[in-house]
């Protein structure tokens, strides 16, 4: 997947976890927690969704990379480079 596709996938996961949030105004460079109502359980869900959908394992020490959209995409890029995004 390209970074843009990875971004779309993360947005898809976020809309699943927090359906009441308006994601259209998301600032990629600002931490998710400062823009959205997400707690630590929600972050865990992001990790779990990535595992469920793409079989990506993210160790606990790497959770820090999921703070913002840009850091998340940068972190996932090498892991998801060779994957295909399914048509949704």
């Amino acid at each position, binding site marked *: 997947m390209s970074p843009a596709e990875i971004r779309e996938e993360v947005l898809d996961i976020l809309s699943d*976890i*927090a*359906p*009441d*949030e308006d994601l259209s105004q998301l600032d990629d460079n600002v931490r998710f927690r400062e823009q959205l*109502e997400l*707690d630590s*359980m*929600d972050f865990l*869900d992001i990790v*779990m969704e990535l*595992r*469920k959908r793409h079989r990506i394992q993210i160790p606990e020490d790497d959770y820090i990379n999921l703070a913002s959209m840009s850091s998340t995409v940068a972190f996932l890029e090498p892991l998801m480079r060779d994957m295909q995004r399914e048509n949704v």
Partner: protein
Amino acid sequence: MYDTIIIGAGMSGLAAGIRLAYYEQRVCILERHTTIGGLNSFYRLRGRDYDVGLHALTNVTPKGTKTGPLARLLRQLRLRWDDFAIAPQLGSEIAFPGARLKFDNNDRTLRDEVAWAFPHEADNFDRLTREIIAYDDLSEEHANQSAREVVGSILRDPLLVEMLFCPLMFYGSAREHDTDWGQFSIMFRSIFLEGLGRPAAGVRLILKHLVRKFRALGGELKLRSGVQRLGVENGRVTSVVLENDEVLEARNVVSSAGWCETMRLCDDGQPVVTSRAPGQLTFCETIAALDAQPTDLGHDRTITFFNDNDKFVWQKPDDLCDIRSGVI
């Protein structure tokens, strides 16, 4: 071999089952009773539906609210606010001989009532509310601080203190006389700052959604399957033996049977740790069916917390039941 066996098909067991099954664990919930619900169950008698335990939901916030325990719970279980069909309370009351305080799902109501009945305490009440809002329920910092001590240092009128403690003790204290400041803050927020409501169809609607979701995610539910003992090896639970002697294996066992009972089920011969002894208080409940609407009898309060004295006593009674205080 299951990934997780959960003991108890009450709300916590079902919720845990949903979360684990959602993330593809092979989950089995074991329930000793013939039906689900545990401490918050339901039954039908002579053509009427009754709920056991839960009669009102705390933490009721309007649909669309993103913060607070209800919103979080719905999000984590992938349920919608509409699924519970919550009917908000009309309004409740704390009734002591010297004063009455009304409260409802608008937190200003209680604030105004306090300001009217205890004008000298209006500012203190605001300060107490700010402290309560500031309490971080995820930190252990104030876990053991006495609520009576903290509240007593902010509010001066003893009657007001007793009146605020009454509902919160009923909802949240298994301990005599006092509760801890953390618990007090959590209950205060749940009842006075958020709100009360009831699924109009009763708790069975919530349970129906939970069990349906759990099964749809591939979870297994075994009713009439009480646990006889938990097989322990090297300090780890490795098997679950049912009352019919059937043996089930799982990588993890999660129990909603309570600390004492769960420890008792473990077959490694370790004595139950007495520092976590069972609570000393319990409720006695009576249900009456009337042939008139409560409003016809002049009663319009959803819940009434009453006490027959200026002082609220919360302790193990000397006789069968302490009826000086209660919840209607």
